[in-house]
């Protein structure tokens, strides 16, 4: 468990390396922007609160949610619209790929580049276009070309932000569902007949003026106008039905709550508390009375609290997106963490096991820390679905089942690690035996879910792609993962592997899951599951595999030394 935390901290440390300073007028610091956070805006194909649009927008340009550490997303978003010209020459666009930097003539050590130097870089454009061309010809772009395209996307986002083209605050004739418009796009004849629209256009103008001049009262009143105004639909739809349109519907409220409350962050904090308390309450043998009963109760309570945070978080996310929360790497990571708590909590209760409780808390905590702190790898934004994933019951069921099986395997891996580590302690065999039993049960549960998930995937693929099975890398790796666990279970059944072997199996077979879950999308990046493809985190994942492998090898060596007859 400690390894994970160290790794997470190490990665967090890496992303905080030295970076060039960003210069902005002092006026941007003046105002309190909280009143504008809930304004509804169309961004990335979806209506969302301004806070979320700003966070995602700044994240996309800067690689994290603020131009500087102090500035925050809202202030950065306003600054980009108002001081874009002066920011164009400053190194604020995230461009961390060393090979790309070298190729296009930037300092390979840096992480950022300025708009001016990137926009005029012909080599970057050529690489990005080559990636587009390869996509059109159904070929795979090289990592360098993909990195160039990623940088070009950040560049375009900066251009949009600088031009103010990201502030789509005014619903169009199709109402909330259709195209929203920039203030300058609204035709004069519409404004003339709809006083609410006049107010809204006026409010947008005042909002920027107030930010530029530091006028808090004007800022708050225009922000309030924009977040609370109802629009008469007459002029929008031409139907003359005299109805009002709430420009800030319930899902925008829910998303604002999600963005401000950070339930998944609170979940890992609660899980950390649960882990520490379980650790304090531990005694040498798992079944003997705990050293501190209060600590054990606290641990269980904290885990319960974490479960509440998670349920609240998922409920909000599902309400906002209107679909199952398993459509990208970030969501599946959350879902796996949730599964760990969902399975591990009751199992710890059934077996009355503190070791299990601690393993669950630790594994869950690591998962949520990663999800909360690696936004460039695990993108938390809620995006509209690609066509192939739209409105499908089987698909949701398939992905939910597969990823929840990963949770059971993660639990088996955590317990397995705890188990194999016991070789360094004396008289730990009974405890190891208990842990092996937990790991075995977890693997059985996981396998049940994984096989069910694969079959559901087959049903969906048959329905959607016309074949039940097609040796697509994602399909194939989920089968390989299942085969890995089948080997462990059959090996145990045939007597080939014993207690230590089962624990080790739980640890090593998880590599198959890592590959099926992360590797196919991030390393192989081929096949039909292309909507999940992404980049980044390879070094961290490599470090995890290396450390885990080395630890398993050390335990195996120690085990062999202690039991030479095997």
């Amino acid at each position, binding site marked *: 468990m400690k390894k994970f935390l160290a790794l997470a901290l190490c990665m967090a440390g890496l992303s905080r390396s030295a970076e060039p300073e960003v210069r902005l007028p002092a006026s941007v610091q003046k105002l309190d922007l909280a009143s504008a956070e809930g304004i509804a805006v*169309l961004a990335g*194909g*979806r209506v969302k609160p301004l806070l979320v649009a700003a966070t995602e927008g700044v994240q996309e340009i800067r690689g994290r949610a603020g131009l500087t550490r102090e500035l925050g997303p809202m202030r950065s978003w306003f600054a980009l619209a108002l001081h874009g010209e002066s920011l164009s020459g400053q190194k604020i666009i995230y461009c961390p790929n060393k090979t790309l930097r070298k190729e296009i003539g930037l300092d390979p050590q840096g992480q950022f580049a300025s708009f001016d130097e990137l926009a005029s870089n012909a080599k970057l454009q050529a690489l990005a276009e080559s990636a587009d061309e*390869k996509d059109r010809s*159904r*070929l*795979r*772009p*090289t990592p360098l070309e993909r990195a160039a395209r990623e940088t070009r996307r950040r560049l375009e986002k900066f251009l949009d932000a600088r031009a103010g083209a990201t502030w789509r605050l005014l619903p169009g004739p199709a109402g909330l569902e*259709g*195209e*929203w418009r920039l203030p300058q796009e609204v035709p004069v004849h519409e404004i003339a007949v709809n006083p609410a629209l006049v107010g809204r256009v006026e409010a947008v103008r005042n909002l920027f003026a107030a930010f530029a001049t530091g006028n808090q009262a004007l800022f708050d009143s225009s922000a309030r106008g924009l977040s609370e105004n109802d629009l008469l639909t007459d002029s929008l739809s031409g139907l003359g039905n005299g109805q009002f349109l709430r420009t800030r519907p319930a899902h925008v409220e829910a998303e604002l709550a999600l963005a401000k409350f950070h339930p998944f962050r609170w979940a890992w904090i609660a899980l950390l508390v649960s882990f520490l308390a379980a650790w304090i309450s531990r005694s040498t043998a798992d079944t003997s009375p705990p050293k501190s009963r209060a600590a054990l109760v606290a641990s269980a309570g904290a885990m319960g609290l974490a479960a509440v945070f998670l349920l609240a978080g998922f409920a909000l996310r599902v309400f906002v997106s209107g679909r199952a929360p398993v459509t990208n790497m970030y969501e599946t990571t959350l879902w796996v963490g949730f599964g760990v708590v969902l399975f591990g909590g009751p199992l710890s209760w059934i*077996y009355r096991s503190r070791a299990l409780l601690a393993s669950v808390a630790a594994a869950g905590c690591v998962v949520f820390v990663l999800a909360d702190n690696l936004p460039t790898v695990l993108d938390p934004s809620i995006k*509209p679905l*690609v*066509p*192939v994933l*739209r*409105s499908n019951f089987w698909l949701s069921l398939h992905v939910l089942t597969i990823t929840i099986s990963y949770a059971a395997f993660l639990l088996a891996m955590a317990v397995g690690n705890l188990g194999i580590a016991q070789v360094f302690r004396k008289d730990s065999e009974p405890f190891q*035996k*208990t842990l092996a*039993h937990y790991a*075995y*049960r977890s693997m*059985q549960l996981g396998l*049940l879910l994984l*096989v*069910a998930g694969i*079959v559901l995937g*087959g*049903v969906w693929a*048959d*329905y*959607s*792609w*016309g*074949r*039940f*099975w097609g*040796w697509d*890398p994602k399909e*194939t*790796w989920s089968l*390989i993962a299942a*085969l890995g666990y*089948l*080997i462990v279970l*059959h*090996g145990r059944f*045939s007597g*080939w592997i014993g*207690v230590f072997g089962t624990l080790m199996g739980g640890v090593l077979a998880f590599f*198959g899951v890592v*590959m099926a879950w992360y590797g*196919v999308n991030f*390393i*192989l*990046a*081929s*096949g039909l599951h292309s909507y999940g493809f992404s980049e980044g985190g390879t070094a961290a994942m490599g470090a995890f595999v290396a450390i885990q492998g080395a630890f398993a090898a050390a335990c195996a060596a120690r085990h062999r030394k202690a039991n030479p007859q095997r």
Partner: protein
Amino acid sequence: MTTSSSRKSRILRNLPIVRTLASLKLAVVTMGSLAAILAVGTLIESRYNADMARLLVYDRWWFDLLLAFLFLNILFSVLIRMPLKRHQYAFGCIHLGMLVLLAGAFGTRLGGLDGTIEIPEGSASMAVRLPETVLRSYLDERFESEVPLDRSLVSDSGDLGPVPGFPGNGPRIVQSIPFSKIYQKTSPTPDGTPIVELALMAGESEPIALRLALDHPALPSRQDAASLHVSLEPVGSVAAFLDTTPNIPAALSLECRHGKNSVEFALGELVPGRTKNDGMLEVGVVEFLPDARIGDSGLANQSGNLVNPAVRLKVSTGNATWEEILYGRVPGFRFTGDAHPEVSWKIEYRPHGGAAQAPTLRLGAAGDSLLARCERDGRILAAFHVLPGRSMRLPLEGVHASVGTWLPRADLRDSCVEVDPAPGAALPPPAIRVGQGPWGAPRWIPLGGFFGWSEAGHRRILSHEERRTALPFGIRLDSFKVGTNPGTMDAASYESFVTVVDSLGAPLDTARIAMNEPLQHGGYTFYQASFVQRPGAPSTTILSVNRDPGRPFKYLGSLLAVISIGWYAAERLRKRTETPA
């Protein structure tokens, strides 16, 4: 009965082959090998592509053998435990489910169909392309026979099989290479077809090389390049092709729109004094000049031919009245400029000949000579004889064209060399070489290529193609739509609106095919797989077509396996009160 069956099972159990096949350790080894091989397969797919992985792993005979071995392994692990005891029922059902599932997979492999069908908007097709290749022979453009070709991974030579269309000791396939690079060479032959090679140069950019051919399926007879349509066509009458004033009647119509009111004039209605009105809008013809010219004394008519039509109109909207002059050849021009934006005009003028709207370079093959005609916006701009090797400045988009090769009767010859497939790129096509035939020296035919020769007054063609099979009905694409998310260019949906037609083209059924919304008809299922959209060409939808006799087995096996795994797990969990491990 019980005694006899238990004796049978005891005998079975004691057979060494049965004991080996049913052993758990063998199962572990088989599953381990399968996992390792699959992992290699995915790495190949990642480095090359799915076709390569199929060629190297999933479509190999030994891969089927490994799965068959797994099937036997599972089968015997159950058989050896027969008759099953009560606590083994769940185990038995899981493994039975796996067996049925694998049987379904073999069923698909043996009798399934998995291909694609490409349909341009407005057309119908019943030809399904399959991922296999064949060598086909045609006699006088009619299909004669075909032989399937094995897609191997190594190059080979010697006698590799017969050539279709020649029974007995006829021509043979003498060489095959799995991945080829093709060099094409044109050479004159007495019974060839016209081929022209030309280069287009627009501004500073690199010249674009085109090769057009007539009646030659391997080469196009029309292409789009440098914002021109370029085409090659046979010419019957040279004089008619070079005549820039052909006698197809010209036409003119105009429409005036003011708010919700509009009036229209056809050519015959453009008579001085004719007035039309709609609501407050009133338009009257003051003067009509079929062939106008601006002289010292204003507009004057040159002839009665509709060459440069101009019309003088009196327009009234209730608020204002003014005089307007419009020209057929300059539909954007307004005599009054921007003074009356409330009124919009639509002028349609087609001169004699009905020439193309878009810039077009039409090449005409007339015996040994090559002709060219430039057309644009309904006008023939120029028509002339082409001198090969001489650069021509075309009155189109500032493009220069230069015909490098003009062969009135030529043959296209492919020459193939073996290459290694490059990572991340599409696989190069395979190629075969056929010899000992009436065509003389052995000839290469790459996938997608062909060649033909004349024989006793007949024309024969050998062609290396993807295997096609015909559906018992056709699919017509009525329209294709790509929906986007609001405020973005990201695709949100792909939809093909199709009509199922019988073999004579009569409609049977209409349907919408979208992602996750397939069409099922006549035992076949059609899925939205892909599409091609290019400017200036109709959208083409690509549907995958599937027929799977193993499907019921797969569903049954999956259902059985999942339910019984659940059953097994429930039984185990019930025993949780027992001492752990």
